């Protein structure tokens, strides 16, 4: 369960969200997009186009997809992270985790002809009745869960259909959860009516994800949530939590330290699945920048140091979850290492 704390204006988290989905398209995974704000069709139209003629990539996505689906286990991970998919990619011979995307272009419609995608747009769904047993949860969340569960069951992502030979992965993207548009008032008041709706939703979602072959990214406007206790509980319930802090409008924009970057990346938690430890990277200071075509995440370094930035190498544990969620960040032009997203 990838949990992304949105930055103030939602610009960059949307970008990450789209990367996640775009990677799903390129790898041929199933997609499920949920939003209360923007119609999923529009979201899908804005996915960045993959760079197919990248110098650093020798093969297309098919190999990566087949590698992923072969050594796949039933337990899925929920990764909340911004940057969780970091992967060092300097040499083209190592396994490709993801693809690189060109943010200035949008993905051509032919690419997602072959991909099965499902959408959940809240204003459209409000008319139908929830068939699930309610558990005192917000009705929008109830419907979303029901929809996800239905898709998982029908498309066989949970292994319930033994005849289905080819197992595919479902990538779920939920945008701006917890905002007012979902009918939850945790963003607007300090003592919300139903303080447990979001956490219950996340728990059930976690159960669904663990049971099936899916991965999920959720963006949440954390800065709007008044009650900090909720954020703590949410962090506990998710596998990976990444926070994006953009410099727009804050005093850091003019700070020369951060001159080259557009924002900071805070990794709050990384998944610790199937092993005693999680992999903690060497550095915790990461920043992102958005150029015209590329979105990169790099280790934060001070401007006087003009050497190339070094990307975080991903180690085994991160790699495991990165396998499921990788979508590429743009490649830097000159031989710098890439961070896969």
């Amino acid at each position: 369960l990838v949990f992304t704390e949105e930055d103030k204006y939602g610009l960059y988290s949307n970008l990450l969200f789209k990367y996640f989905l775009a990677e799903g398209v390129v790898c041929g995974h199933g997609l499920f997009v949920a939003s209360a704000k923007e119609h999923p069709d529009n979201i899908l139209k804005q996915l960045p186009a993959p760079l197919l003629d990248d110098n650093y990539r020798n093969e297309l996505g098919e190999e990566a997809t087949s590698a992923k689906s072969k050594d796949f286990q039933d337990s899925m991970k929920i990764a909340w992270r911004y940057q969780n998919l970091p992967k060092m990619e300097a040499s083209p011979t190592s396994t490709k985790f993801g693809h690189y995307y060109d943010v200035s272009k949008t993905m051509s419609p032919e690419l997602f002809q072959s991909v099965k995608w499902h959408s959940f747009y809240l204003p459209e769904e409000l008319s139908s009745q929830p068939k699930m047993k309610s558990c005192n949860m917000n009705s929008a969340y109830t419907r979303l869960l029901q929809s996800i569960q239905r898709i998982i069951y029908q498309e066989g992502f949970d292994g319930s259909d033994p005849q289905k030979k080819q197992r595919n992965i479902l990538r779920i993207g939920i945008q701006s959860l917890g905002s007012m548009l979902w009918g939850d008032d945790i963003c607007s008041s300090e003592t919300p009516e139903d303080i447990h709706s979001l956490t219950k939703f996340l728990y059930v979602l976690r159960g669904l994800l663990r049971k099936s072959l899916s991965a999920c990214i959720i963006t949440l406007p954390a800065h709007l949530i008044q009650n900090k206790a909720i954020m703590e509980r949410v962090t506990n319930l998710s596998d990976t939590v990444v926070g994006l802090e953009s410099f727009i409008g804050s005093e850091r924009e003019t700070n020369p330290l951060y001159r080259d970057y557009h924002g900071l990346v805070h990794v709050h938690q990384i998944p610790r699945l199937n092993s005693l430890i999680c992999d903690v990277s060497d550095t915790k200071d990461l920043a992102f920048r958005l150029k015209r075509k590329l979105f990169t995440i790099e280790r934060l370094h001070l401007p006087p140091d003009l050497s190339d930035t070094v990307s975080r190498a991903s180690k085994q544990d991160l790699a495991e979850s990165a396998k499921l969620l990788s979508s590429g960040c743009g490649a830097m032009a000159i031989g710098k290492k890439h961070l896969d997203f």
Partner: protein
Amino acid sequence: QGKFTLLRDTRTDGSFLVHHFLSFYLRAGCKVCFLALLQSFSHYNIVAQKLGVSLTAARERGQLVFLEGLKSCLDLLFGEEKEEEQSGQPSPLQFMSEGASNLKALFDFVQTSLNPTSDGSWQGPVLLVDDLSVLLSLGAAPVAVLDFIHYCRVTVCSQLKGNIVVLVHSNEDSEDEENELVVNSLCHHSDLILWAEGLATGFCKDVHGEIKIIKRASLELMAEQDHVQIYQYKIQDKNVTF
């Protein structure tokens, strides 16, 4: 025997302690009831295998009763009507669906699983909970959680002379008051507290954190000092070094 151990973590993850206790008690031949609320069975299984214990084997021979919270919650919410009638007993996580604010169903589950049966020749029963803070997230009131623990203590520690190990998360400047309430209350009731903390000086590569072991000298005599030991630890793939 009859001990209540509290595992507490702050700014770091203390679940390695849970894995340790699980494999420890299974190796000792105790009957274990494990309420795994946060992770799936295969996660614990894989880690336990690295530590040398097989959970599937233990479950099959009846030594381990495993409640997989995530799965049971899904069954509760998405399950068919007829399945429920067939199984006969209410789901342990029933408090989620109804407005019921007591965790009685959960307690009943614990009780039935740890009651000495005729075929069991296990050593004392053990209740292991990972982790208790999740119950608060799911809508249980702090008082209900404390009641649940109290009932479990009475049954497991006093009547059956077993042990209880519970994991909770806490933060020092946490704003989650309910959680802090539960944690503080449990601290006062426990015989042994293992407190895993991230290092105060920040992140370090070689040392993952420090663990404070607080052994209560006696719960009745308040004058005695608690025995406190502090160790720093590093978690590796198969074990933890101190």
